[in-house]
């Protein structure tokens, strides 16, 4: 090291170095030759010529010299770095309290950010796990009613045949349904199943892990074929290769297993198998109005999405003129498949978290910067000595920055641990369905890399101000000065840092407040029914075992009677859907019109939700019938069609009494379907379908006897206590009726759990943001405490003098608290203004609360006031108890 340093200090420009060296050589050689008796002129010529081509020589030496210098600079730099790092470690070891606080603060900040980075990385940043994913687009069928609607099979088939931009097009049903598999051992089992078209695996470019995927021949033969998922293959068949090619009986029909699809295919839906839905060219006309498919296309290489869009739009326009009765006003919209899979809710949630943890990290930086500033003041003399000994300002700044980067790297290492810990906990919180099916959060090398980069940047960010601040004082000033009297610039920066911290903490608190109010709003609305103590389960008999509706009805009646006899059971009901839960029919809507009203154009008809329930459904849920009657024994298979509507439906009639009116309804967008007509016999209390639905939804209940389906949800209300305690008894009761075990019982849960799940997203956001906001407030208050404690420490003597001169405790307190209050009030005011400006950004995540919610403003102010008071109390107490005699006597 000494070598490089010395040669470095004496370095002259390389060309000059070479010129001088060669000139000396030539001169000495000339002298030598003259001494030997050569003529001076000739001697010089000879000396030069002995060097050969001097210009080439110089060029060669210059090249070597430059390389040498570059390497020496690097070596020197590395050596300085090593010294700085060593020195930094020594410094940190000498002040363990400072180091501990700073490192922990940084670890929290970096850890929180790394966990959120893992979430964002897994969802937003990574491409879909398919080959050339940027060529994959979702093709939505759009109309006036929906901007992102599902497509009908006939339209999909025609798009595929007529476009010029796509390699291929395929589709799947958006929902995952279930089928009953009769196992070889005779036991029935409900497995999840998703319908797909034959080409879906080819469009996505997914290769099977065993067997094959669907072939065009499968589609032409209208064969019943399934591809099972790798997970199901593993858990159910223990990866037995002989499953491929075998038949399994599902819903009473035989399906051939043709292959096994790898895990990444499950991104379409978390399911055990994909069953092929064949769509031959000659579909019945009404298939053009069955909007049920989510369509995916793989664009040809080099085709831009806009070009594909206009190509397909032209095809759709052609279809609209060809089939006006179905396709008038319908066109297509293309969207990158990645966007479809991620969903706007996840995107907004991720960005919200990124913003929140970003602020937390800034607060951490501000806190550590504050600590460093305080230390820099204390180290003023040390730095002054170093500078007097010849270290330049740049050199000292570099050394101080090295210290802060070392600090933040230690914080980053611990942050990796904190982040891993957060990721251990969060999966429990993440609501079902927010992440695409196969996305799992992993703490991988990318996250570690993120931590490293974050730590480096953070180290420079919080280190730069203190470093410049520390070196701003001239050395004579600092060395001559008494350490007690350093205030000025450093103090001002520190004040503003704390103002910034308080402002950011207030902003986060405010966001957390809004999200908590949203959570409260979705949890504490008037449900209309009593959710406590209700057990639900899916009862799904094989349709071959109960071939007729009468047999099926008989089975359900027997089960109901048997379960009702179970001790502790208060009531038993049946339904096709659960409040706040999923409907077995999926999310399609029905259009309706009142019989006798003037006819309305199909596209403008109002829509309603459709639910099939037993007579006992209302009593089981304690859902009141507010007018007319509920269903009862009069409503049998052969009785006149009746229905019950909800309050929103009733209100839509404009004050007319619904009881006795006839309503006609059918599946939306299928004008050829024969409509159902029924008499409204009652009005039920309004219930929610989604916890955060913007308006009350319209609903029609139909008696189970009129629309019997072979999978039904059973609801059991217990007399007292927890409903899930009844589970074994109820299951036993069912198997007493279903002696041959041909009925599958699945999805056993309680209504309270269904509700808990339904509000999962709101809870996830509220919990996460609140946790980070609390952290932010704590950190900010540590910041307030820090500068206050420091300034009290610095001014003890001042206070002592004041007390000695007759100032009261109150006078001193006013001095101390006044400063702190100024900082906090300024910060809080800025924070509240920022909150008011930025509340709009999360308006899509809010429900039941406005972005400018006054209650939240008030709560935030109160929280800040209380925590501020706590952080001020200690230093203030200390200042108030100054003993003039003690302080003045000490130096």
């Amino acid at each position, binding site marked *: 090291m000494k070598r490089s340093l010395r*040669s470095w200090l004496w370095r002259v420009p390389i060309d000059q170095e070479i010129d*001088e*060296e060669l000139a*000396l050589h030539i*001169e000495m050689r000339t002298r030598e030759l003259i001494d030997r008796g050569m003529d001076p002129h000739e001697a010089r010529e000879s000396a030069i010529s002995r060097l050969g081509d001097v210009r080439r020589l110089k060029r060669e030496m210059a090249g*070597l010299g430059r390389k*040498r210098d570059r390497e020496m600079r690097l070596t020197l730099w590395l050596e300085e770095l090593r010294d700085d790092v060593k020195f930094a470690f020594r410094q940190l070891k000498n002040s363990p309290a400072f180091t501990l606080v700073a490192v922990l603060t940084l670890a929290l900040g970096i850890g929180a950010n790394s966990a959120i980075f893992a979430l964002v990385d897994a969802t937003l940043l990574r491409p879909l796990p398919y080959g050339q994913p940027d060529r994959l687009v979702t093709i939505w069928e759009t109309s006036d009613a929906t901007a992102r609607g599902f497509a009908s099979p006939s339209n999909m088939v025609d798009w595929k045949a007529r476009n010029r931009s796509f390699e291929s097009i395929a589709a799947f049903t958006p929902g995952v349904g279930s089928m009953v598999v009769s196992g070889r051992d005779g036991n029935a089992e409900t497995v999840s199943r998703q319908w797909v078209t034959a080409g879906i695996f080819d469009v996505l470019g997914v290769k099977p892990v065993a067997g094959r995927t669907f072939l065009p021949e499968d589609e032409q033969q209208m064969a019943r074929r399934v591809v099972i998922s790798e997970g199901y293959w593993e858990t159910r068949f223990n990866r037995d290769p002989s499953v491929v090619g075998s038949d399994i009986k599902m819903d009473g029909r035989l399906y051939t297993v043709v292959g096994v699809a790898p895990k990444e295919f499950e991104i379409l839906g978390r399911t055990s198998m994909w069953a092929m839905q064949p769509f031959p060219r000659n579909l019945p006309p009404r298939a053009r109005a069955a909007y049920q498919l989510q369509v995916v296309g793989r664009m040809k290489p080099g085709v831009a999405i806009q070009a594909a869009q206009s190509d397909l739009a032209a095809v759709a326009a052609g279809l609209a003129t060809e089939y006006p009765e179905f396709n008038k006003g319908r066109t297509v919209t293309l969207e990158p498949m990645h966007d479809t899979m991620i969903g706007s809710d996840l995107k907004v949630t991720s960005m919200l978290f990124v913003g929140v943890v970003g602020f937390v990290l800034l607060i951490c930086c501000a806190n550590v910067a504050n600590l460093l500033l305080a230390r820099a003041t204390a180290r003023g003399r040390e730095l002054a000595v170093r500078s007097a000994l010849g270290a330049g300002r740049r050199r000292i700044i570099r050394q101080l920055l090295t210290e802060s980067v070392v600090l933040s790297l230690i914080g980053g290492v611990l942050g990796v641990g904190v982040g891993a810990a957060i990721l251990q906990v969060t999966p429990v919180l993440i609501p079902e369905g927010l992440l695409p099916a196969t996305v799992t959060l992993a703490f991988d090398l990318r996250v570690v890399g993120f931590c490293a980069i974050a730590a480096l940047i953070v180290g420079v960010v919080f280190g730069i101000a203190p470093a410049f601040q520390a070196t701003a004082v001239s050395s004579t000033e600092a060395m001559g000065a008494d350490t007690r009297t350093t205030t000025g610039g450093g103090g001002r920066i520190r004040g503003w840092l704390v103002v910034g911290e308080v402002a950011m903490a207030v902003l986060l608190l405010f966001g957390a407040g809004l999200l908590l109010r949203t959570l409260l709003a979705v949890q504490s609305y008037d449900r209309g029914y009593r959710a406590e103590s209700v057990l639900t389960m899916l009862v799904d008999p094989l349709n071959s075992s109960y071939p007729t509706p009468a047999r099926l009805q008989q089975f359900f009646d027997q089960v109901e009677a048997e379960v009702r006899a179970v001790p502790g059971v208060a009531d038993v009901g049946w339904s096709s859907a659960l409040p706040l839960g999923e409907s077995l029919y999926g999310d399609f809507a029905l259009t309706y019109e009142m019989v006798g009203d003037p006819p309305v154009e199909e596209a403008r008809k109002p829509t309603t939700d459709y639910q099939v329930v037993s007579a006992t459904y209302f009593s089981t849920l304690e859902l009141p019938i507010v007018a007319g009657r509920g269903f009862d024994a009069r409503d049998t298979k052969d009785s006149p069609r009746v229905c019950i509507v909800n309050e929103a439906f009733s209100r839509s009639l404009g004050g007319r009494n619904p009881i006795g009116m006839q309503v006609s309804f059918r599946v939306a967008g299928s004008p050829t379907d024969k409509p159902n007509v029924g008499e409204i016999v009652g009005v039920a209390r309004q219930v929610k379908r989604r916890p955060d639905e913007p308006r009350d939804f319209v609903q029609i209940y139909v008696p189970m006897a009129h629309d019997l389906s072979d999978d039904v949800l059973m609801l059991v209300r217990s007399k007292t206590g927890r409903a899930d305690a009844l589970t074994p008894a109820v299951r036993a009761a069912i198997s007493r009726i279903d002696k041959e075990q041909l009925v599958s019982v699945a999805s056993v849960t309680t209504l309270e759990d269904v509700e808990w799940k339904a509000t999962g997203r709101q809870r996830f956001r509220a919990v996460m943001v609140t946790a980070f906001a609390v952290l932010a407030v704590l950190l900010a208050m540590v910041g307030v405490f820090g500068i206050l404690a420091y300034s009290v420490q610095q001014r003890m003597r001042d206070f002592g003098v004041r007390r000695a001169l007759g100032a009261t405790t109150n006078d001193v307190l006013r001095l101390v608290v006044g400063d702190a209050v100024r900082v906090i009030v300024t910060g809080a005011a800025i924070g509240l203004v920022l909150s008011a400006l930025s509340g709009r950004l999360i308006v899509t995540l809010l429900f039941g609360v406005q972005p400018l919610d006054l209650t939240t403003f008030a709560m935030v102010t109160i929280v800040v006031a209380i925590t501020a008071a706590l952080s001020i109390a200690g230093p203030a107490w200390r200042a108030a108890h100054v003993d003039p005699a003690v302080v003045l006597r000490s130096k």
Partner: protein
Amino acid sequence: MTTPSKTPNALLHGALDALILKTLARGPSHGYAVARFIEDTTGDAVLVEEGSLYPALYRLERRGWVEAEWGTSELGRRAKLYRLTGAGRTQLEAEMATWRRFSAGVSKVLFST
């Protein structure tokens, strides 16, 4: 470009480095002095091509075997003096050992009877 008659004592590849290191082992000196010392010691039996001496010195400096500093020449002028480093000394010993083995081997063949 060289014929045996003209440069009967052309240096074997790598030997120049060893000679320079050996020269500097006596003490720091500038480039001309190195050249002179080699010429004088070998009695002009080995011709040091001056065009390759300086690049060799720079290469050795870059490898850390010699280091350079500004000193004063016999003429009272500023001169760049080269000095052997610790690493250079080790390298010199290694080269000497290699050379000894090499020349012993070659001699054995050439002077065998």
